């Protein structure tokens, strides 16, 4: 397809190209606005009073800024009969996500290392089965998993939820690390073997240190998965162990009294903040890890 605006005109400045560039910027700007709109509404609503929400306009700026809704969402909103806000559930989520991410990343790294660098008999089959695990819908495993947790005595506990998330994260974390390690020359492992290093020594001293970029990718992925999980959280928790996503649902769905949109919004933002934070912090390291260029020997 010929597009004449791309061919440089003989007369120096190419106006067609510049116009096109500006059109692109305007379009991207519009898209950004479109996607930022809900966030804008959430933030402004969360700092309005209920009175203002009732009388005002959805997209107008608050006349008077108040953080009452945030305070309520954090420590006073009712999730049923209790009215402690999202705080206890937020900490539950932290207690689930941090060990869950750490364990699934570490075990995934080890799995990937084994599958990619210690090509034992049946390695490919095992890897294919793990990949298959990535594509099993979670609903399918709810009942068997509940049974397993019950047998292990971990039903309704935070370690039980960590266990579930680690198991279901392994397919993906193994895939990430395996694909990263498969591009590393097997001669590296051989050299270390000749140097006298064993299986774990090679993993700790050689492979893990060169894995920063893929660790960051895996951590972002796993943290987002585990923190945002609702289905496992609602299925395998009980009164004291629910994660923040379940609490948020309960707050929003509480039917007593008036609907406090500002509290709902604040609670939703609180629940989403950690994943945002992980992107902001780790995203930078991710780019840094990719551009450092020191990975290849």
């Amino acid at each position: 397809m010929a597009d004449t605006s791309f061919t440089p005109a003989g007369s120096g400045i190419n106006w067609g190209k510049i116009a096109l560039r500006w059109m692109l910027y305007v379009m991207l700007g519009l898209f950004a606005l479109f996607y930022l709109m809900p966030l804008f509404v959430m933030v402004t609503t969360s700092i309005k009073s209920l009175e203002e929400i009732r009388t005002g306009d959805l997209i107008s700026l608050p006349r008077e800024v108040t953080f009452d809704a945030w305070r309520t969402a954090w420590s006073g909103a009712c999730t049923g009969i209790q009215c402690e806000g999202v705080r206890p559930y937020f900490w539950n989520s932290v207690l689930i996500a941090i060990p869950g991410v750490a364990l699934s990343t570490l075990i995934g790294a080890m799995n990937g290392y084994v599958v990619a660098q210690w090509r034992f008999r049946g390695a490919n089959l095992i890897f294919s089965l793990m990949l298959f695990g990535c594509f099993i819908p979670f609903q399918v495993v709810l009942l068997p998993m509940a049974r397993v947790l019950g047998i292990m005595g971990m039903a309704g506990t935070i370690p039980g939820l960590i266990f579930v998330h680690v198991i279901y994260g392994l397919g993906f974390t193994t895939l990430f690390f395996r694909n990263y390690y498969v591009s590393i020359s097997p001669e590296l492992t051989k050299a270390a073997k000749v140097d006298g290093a064993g299986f774990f020594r090679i993993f700790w001293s050689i492979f893990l240190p060169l894995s920063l970029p893929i660790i960051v990718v895996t951590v972002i992925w796993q943290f987002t998965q585990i923190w945002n999980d609702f289905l496992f959280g609602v299925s395998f928790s009980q009164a004291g162990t629910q994660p923040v996503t379940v609490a948020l649902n309960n707050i929003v769905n509480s039917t007593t009294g008036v609907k406090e949109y500002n509290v709902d919004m604040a609670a939703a933002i609180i629940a989403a903040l950690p994943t945002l934070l992980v992107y902001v912090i780790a995203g930078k390291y991710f780019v840094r890890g990719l551009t450092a260029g020191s990975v290849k020997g």
Partner: protein
Amino acid sequence: MAPILEINNLFKNYGSVEILKDINISIEKGDFLVLVGPSGCGKSTLLNCIAGLEPITSGQMNIGGDDMTFVSPKDRDIAMVFQSYALYPTMTVAKNITFGMKVRGVEQDVQDRKLAEVAKQLQMENLLNRKPGQLSGGQRQRVAMGRALVRDPKLFLFDEPLSNLDAKLRVEMRTEIKALHQRLGASMVYVTHDQIEAMTLATKIVVMKGGVIQQMGTPAEIYNTPANLFVADFMGSPAMNLVPAKTSKGADGTHVEIARNGGEPIVLTDAKNRDLPEDVIVGVRPEDIADADARGGEAAQVAECTIDIVEPAGADTYAVMQLGGKHVTARLHAETNAAAGVSQRLAFDLSKVSYFDPETGLRLN
């Protein structure tokens, strides 16, 4: 004394594919063994078997007189330099070199002393704090050598250590490795597909093809008396001229008759009386065909040949012609007056001639 490395009837399969077939090798302390052969012939596999990095299918192996057939790589007292160098990317040069000692729990002051020695020996004291990513190809190669040297093993293994370097550096490092071998008196097994590397470095060469040893011997033996057509063709550059010929017995020795395009066949006389079949492939090195006027001793016999191509190569000029239906290369004087399409008087020296069976390819003399 027991051989430093002895391999007996080694076989290696990957699944149902036989990669190495009945390998028997024995080298003495201080030998520089070069395994040479075309790509994919199983050289690296054999080296990995010697290192213990690949299990062997059957056979037996001694290193330093001890049975090492089932011993893990770390206990074989070997050091290996890899084609990709395989430097640990996140460690500094110093850490790369001392990693093996650290793993084995060698004391820190011993580590430091050995590191300093090796760094001095390879002239890389100024590189010790760099990471592999900050080094040039030649420097990485040096570090890989250092990592092997610091171990002071019974046996050094090299897998095409120079193949990733540019031509000039490759020649320099080749000389350096040879000097190193002479200085250390170490035993080495060196893999390459480059026959010049093999000739220049080896005290002993093993030529391989398709997982089978074709010939084992000193560089001179391999060069002068190749065991079969493959070795004759593979070793030497330009390659040995291999031409179909007819032989017959004469009073003054063996007559060798080579067909010539549109003319009388050339008949050369090999002064030795030999028992040969009538049809043979005769093998003559390019340097044994020279200008009749400039060189040629009493062993040489002169024949007129029409030159097809002249290739000046600095020190020599190569002339290519058609004999017995094959391209034949002669190594002429640099200032030769040979020209394409012109007939030239050439002196053939048959004192080092090889004869091969056209059917089996095996050497006949």
